[in-house]
């Protein structure tokens, strides 16, 4: 009746979770009231965008290329990649901090809603997907190429959006479903 691998996986998962429960530090019942009382804990703390613009600017790479030193150019590119990866990792750490903060704060809430919790898990998962895509792109193509790729992606999206607008116009307003002022049909 029950699938062999499914049952084994259930047993192994249970033993793994038990191990996690047992190794957990008993002292981690930190005072969550600090978080609740201090809304600034929910602020997203990331380095300013100017910093990212600075190390993603093509000027430094162009200057290194002009020096005709392949070793220096390689080093500059490698450093840029390392910095971009570090910036991304910092965002992931920030996401982890926010999630942990939420978990610690709501674990004693009386009105905890499973649906809201599942939504938050999806929000965290979607962030992780974006992070993984960016990390892979930076690792494979470098930060400068990734930025150019995003730029072309944005232009493509704009072109598609304009095209969509034109098509809608050419069809005519009578054929497109309209929304009235109250939000109904």
């Amino acid at each position: 009746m029950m699938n062999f691998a499914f049952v084994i996986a259930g047993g192994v998962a249970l033993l793994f979770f038990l191990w996690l429960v047992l190794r957990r530090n008993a002292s981690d019942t930190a005072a969550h009231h600090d978080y609740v009382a201090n809304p600034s804990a929910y602020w997203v703390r990331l380095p300013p965008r100017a910093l990212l613009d600075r190390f993603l600017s093509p000027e430094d790479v162009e200057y290194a290329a002009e020096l005709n030193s392949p070793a220096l150019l390689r080093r500059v590119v490698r450093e840029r990649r390392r910095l971009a990866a570090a910036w991304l990792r910092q965002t992931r750490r920030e996401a982890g901090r926010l999630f942990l903060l939420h978990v610690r704060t709501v674990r004693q809430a009386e009105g905890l809603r499973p649906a809201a919790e599942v939504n938050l898990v999806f929000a965290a998962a979607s962030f992780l997907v974006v992070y993984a895509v960016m990390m892979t792109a930076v690792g494979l193509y470098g930060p400068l190429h990734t930025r150019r790729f995003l730029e072309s992606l944005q232009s493509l999206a704009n072109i598609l959006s304009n095209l969509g607008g034109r098509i809608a116009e050419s069809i005519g307003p009578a054929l497109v479903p309209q929304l009235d002022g109250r939000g109904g049909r």
Partner: protein
Amino acid sequence: MRLMDNALWWVGNLLIVLVLYRAWRGKFLTRYPYFFGYLGLVACFVVVRVYLRAETTTRAFGIGYWISEFLSAIAGFGITWQIYATILAPYRGACRMARAVLGVLCTLVLVNAIMELTGNVVQNLGPTTVELERNLRFVQTLLLLAITGLTVHYRLPLGRNVRSMLAGYGFYIGCVVIVLSLRSQWGQDFERGKDLLQRSAYLTSLAVWCVGMWSYSRNPVPETLIEADYNRISEQTSRAFGRLREHVTQSWRP
């Protein structure tokens, strides 16, 4: 081998008696009624089986053995409920929900077993009990997985008693589920190994309970429950994640 089997049997029984004695001595038998009820029942069944083996026929012993197995399998659910009730005691809503889910699951498994039993009760008792036990163990695996997952995720505080209850029973159930699956996959060749592993897991659980239930340890009570703040906190976190995602994608655009 027979000597070892006897030794394991005796050690197991002594550990059960020791856990019950310590609870009685420490006056905390009533703090965990389902858990100690289960242990008491198991201890009674040991006595009944010894009596049946010594005083009655093989057939009578067989019937008595399967009835006691049947009742132990159902009573085992009590430990799972005890773990849920103790951990979720401060969270009334979650506790109510858990009680309903556990009740429905237990009823479904019981109804299934009773339907299997109808017809020839004596003949069907053995196979039905084995099936009931397997189903109950699997349902309990899922329930324990859920409570351990919640405990890890929300970092729920656990006292020594409930920690040992969860560790001991979870370890036993996890091992039994794996061993029963391997037995069904590898067949009769694994029978001896299955017995040994199952018995070792049982003794390990009893040892864990013996250490953890040596004296009463109250489950930590959360400092203060948050009143009606959940919606605000949930919205804050949602907004923070939105900002973070936006920051990552927008910052990279020139």
